């Protein structure tokens, strides 16, 4: 997205950190985004000006500058274009530009593709798994003065130990049938698929993505700073990701909940004797016994613990046709299982299934003749 000039003099907005080519454009931006009255849309010239306007004209007090970063929302600071910016913020911006700016912008370039390729491969430890701009959080001080090309030694030193581990991460007892595939691809620090990485990275960067139809986007949504514990955070102004902060999938978080954890099995032994592994020796009679026991146990469980299901529970027809060895899941009995349908006997009046559902279709190849 353009050249990366090391121009410290590029105008930037104190409220939201965005950069502009020209101070005039910066001022237009500030008037439209930060100094615009949300009630009458009048554009003021400064923050205090907006505050006074709202108070006098609309009798409403505002406490923060619209569309601003959380630490830059003070309405009383008088900023106009580049004028009025406190010197420490200027310095901080300079530092961020040369340190963070080079890093995050140069995602577009090939050299940084190496940085990104390395962390993306085989990284399990929480130490900076993200794109280059994130890993710089771990190497703080030298960053600002070291041009990107010099990062590689650092990166490699960090990465190597992890890649050494990778080949050892085999399943215990597993004989690799196809050894070539069982070792994770480990070509550290090289852009493994340079053409592909280029393609990925030179795609429109996130801040100016194809959906330019979103006029309300305020700050950039930066990747999480994964220094210690990976978090899902959006550090842009005015945006918040609706997700628990931990960078773990929603399913994993949910599965930890007591409600979904494996329950201690009931005392009835019979439900336990249908283990999850295939038991070829199970005879038909045993299976039938299991199933009726399972139904009985499940009924008890159901009464004790479960909510009333939507459909009425059905006792399975007996004896059960067992073509192949089966394992019976203990919970089968309490489910709203519909009995098998009879292809031969067409629907007759009164032949309703439990629950009042009219059987209309059948599974292909079904020959079960029994109704409950």
């Amino acid at each position, binding site marked *: 997205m353009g050249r990366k000039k090391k121009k410290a003099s590029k105008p930037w907005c104190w409220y939201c950190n965005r950069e502009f080519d020209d101070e005039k454009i910066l001022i237009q931006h500030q008037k439209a985004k930060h100094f615009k009255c949300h009630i009458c849309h009048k554009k003021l010239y400064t923050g205090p000006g907006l505050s006074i306007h709202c108070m006098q004209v609309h009798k409403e007090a505002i406490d*923060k500058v619209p569309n601003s970063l959380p630490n830059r929302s003070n309405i009383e600071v008088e900023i106009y274009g580049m004028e009025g910016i406190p010197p420490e913020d200027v310095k901080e911006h300079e530092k961020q530009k040369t340190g963070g700016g080079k890093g995050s912008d140069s995602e577009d370039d090939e050299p940084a593709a190496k940085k990104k390729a390395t962390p993306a491969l085989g990284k399990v430890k929480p130490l900076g798994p993200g794109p280059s701009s994130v890993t710089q959080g771990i190497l703080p001080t030298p960053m600002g003065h070291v041009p990107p090309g010099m990062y590689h030694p650092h990166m490699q030193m960090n990465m190597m130990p992890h890649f050494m581990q990778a080949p050892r991460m085999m399943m215990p007892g597993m004989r690799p049938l196809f050894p070539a595939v069982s070792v994770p691809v480990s070509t550290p620090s090289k852009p493994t698929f340079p053409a592909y990485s280029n393609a990925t990275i030179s795609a429109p960067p996130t801040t100016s993505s194809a959906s330019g139809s979103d006029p*309300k986007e305020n700050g950039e949504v930066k990747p999480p700073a994964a220094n210690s514990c990976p978090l899902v955070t959006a550090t842009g102004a005015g*945006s918040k990701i609706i997700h628990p902060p931990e960078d773990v999938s929603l*399913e994993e978080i949910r599965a930890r909940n007591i409600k979904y954890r494996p329950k201690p099995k009931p005392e009835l032994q019979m439900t336990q004797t249908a283990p999850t592994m295939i038991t070829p020796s199970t005879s038909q009679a045993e299976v039938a016994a299991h199933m009726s026991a399972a139904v009985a146990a499940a009924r008890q469980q159901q009464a004790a613990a479960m909510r009333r299901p*939507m459909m009425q529970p059905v006792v399975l027809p007996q004896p059960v046709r067992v073509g192949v060895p089966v394992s019976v899941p203990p919970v089968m009995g309490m*489910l709203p299982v519909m009995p098998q349908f009879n292809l031969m006997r067409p629907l007759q009046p009164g032949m309703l299934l439990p629950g009042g559902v009219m059987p209309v279709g059948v599974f292909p190849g079904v020959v079960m003749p029994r109704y409950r």
Partner: protein
Amino acid sequence: MFNQLGGGSSNPNKDVEVASPPEDTVSAMEFSPPSVPQTFLVAGSWDCRVRCWEVEASGKTVPKAAQGMDGPILDVAWHDDGSKVFMASTDKSVKCWDLAANQTIQVAAHDAPINTCHWIKAPNYTCLMTASWDKTLKFWDTRSSVPIMTMNLNERCYCADVDYPMAVVGTADRGICLYTLEGKPAEFKRVESPLKYQHRCIAIFRDKKTKQPTGFALGSVEGRVAIQYVNPTNPKDNFTFKCHRSAGTTGGYQDIYAVNDIAFHPTHGTLATVGSDGSFSFWDKDARTKLKSSELLDQPLTKCAFNHNGQIFAYAVGYDWSKGHEHYNPNKKNFIFLRPCYDDLKPRST
């Protein structure tokens, strides 16, 4: 009698409501393959059960059967001949449900909950592919309790898709790995993620002309989808777009929601996304435009699916844990809705 056509906050899009929905959030949902003349829908849920309905042409849905596992269901997959359904659960196993006999049998096992299961039908073999939070990808001949192949993943599997001869797995730590299934499954290449946030869902798409799998769409928790070609002719073919975000109000926050599922229309090649924000959207990735946005529901949408001929779009509504356990209400009803979609998903002529 069963279906509730009408509006209201629980069905603002006035779609057909599936009868007897699961009692907890739907985690997986698939329509039957073309080998079956009727249309069946199976849905797995956090209530540890997989349910099956027949969907009639009139839109009526008839509950047919259900099976359970020892833990919440995380994925379901149909056998290509439509006679069996595979169910993957947090109980670390995959069971095969023979629909005709209404029996289940275990066919796979891992050391941790199994996040995805897909049936692979190749010209010279068939097998079941399972990926788990135990960081392995396994391939199973369902007659044996030993996998025919095991591959390591860098991290826990978070999403996967199969479209012969291509398979793709998205993992924690924003990893992506492509596999070729021709001859036998083999790792093809690892790909750098085009997204900066946690991977949530992935779907393979085909080339319009050759009808061969040629890329994938990847959704993240940050309201964004990336369209990636495996071999882009032009680097600019790959792009990302934002979605499932609340319109930012002046001075207020813009809420960014996770993309929970992506599905491609089987004939048009356009795609649907469903999000935590409670809406679904249709997109044309070639014209790079949005085709339609639904009305917002009061709960997140967790899964979506197209039937094999692209006439029906199904979406599941239920809490996805995006706001933590505090916002979980076990008494809130879960839904699955169906709508005719063939016209809505027609590509926009560029």
